């Protein structure tokens, strides 16, 4: 169980969404629609003998230029709690991340808004993922 393994596992799960690019690490150039895995914080010592460490990852989904109506529709699909394009469902489709964690949960989508990238304004959302290792 490694942080890199968790990143790769999250990206693999997200890759089950047709048409959504994934990046296990922050890319130099991001081409929407793309889901980017970020490590937000780590809470060590949740059990004796290093028995459990809690990681919080954020998955930033950049859907397209903010001015495009299609981007909003696509974001709605990604934000659904279930369905073929649900980010939550995709991440939770393998809660062990191929053996890289004990369990995980997508607990919220705390932010939706515009994102400046390459002199363009994109529509993006963040999903918060609690990973228990």
């Amino acid at each position, binding site marked *: 169980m490694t942080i890199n393994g968790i990143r790769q596992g999250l990206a693999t799960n997200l890759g089950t969404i047709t048409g959504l690019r994934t990046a296990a690490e922050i890319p130099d150039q991001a081409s929407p629609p793309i889901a980017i895995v970020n490590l937000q914080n780590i809470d060590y010592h949740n*059990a*004796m003998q290093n028995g*459990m460490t809690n990681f919080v990852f954020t998955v930033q989904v950049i859907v397209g230029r903010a001015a495009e109506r299609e981007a909003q529709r696509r974001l709605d699909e990604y934000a659904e709690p279930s369905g073929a394009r649900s980010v939550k469902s995709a991440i939770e489709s393998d809660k062990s991340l191929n053996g890289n964690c004990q369990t995980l949960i997508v607990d919220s989508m705390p932010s939706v808004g515009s994102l400046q990238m390459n002199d363009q304004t994109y529509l993006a959302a963040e999903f918060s993922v609690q990973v228990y290792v």
Partner: protein
Amino acid sequence: MAKYVVTEATLSINGTDVSDAVARAEVTETAAEVDVTDFGSGGNTEVIGGLKSGSLSFDIHQDYGTGAVSDTLKDLVGTIGTFVVTPNGTTVSGTNPQITTEALITTVTYVSGSVGDLATASYTFPTTGGITIATA
């Protein structure tokens, strides 16, 4: 001896090490207060130590895998279990004593938790007999 932060405590139940699923552990021993106040007590209360009793409590992260903590506890309700606790790692010494006690497993929590939370359970068992503290 130095002060320490609790990160490496160990707990075993009937010989099964469940430390990596334990988030809190506590063993206490208490002596009953027996009142011996009399007219010779000079207006004060006098007490002496009576029967001793103990308590073992711990919080776990539920795990029903084979040999994991929930699996270990699930058939033990109503039985006397042997519990071994060390405060700071596995090397027993004068500064890391091994505390051994038997306790009556009065309850087993099979399911507990709110939606979205990590499944946990908290236990408190009364000890039976004495508590042994080994330093080697």
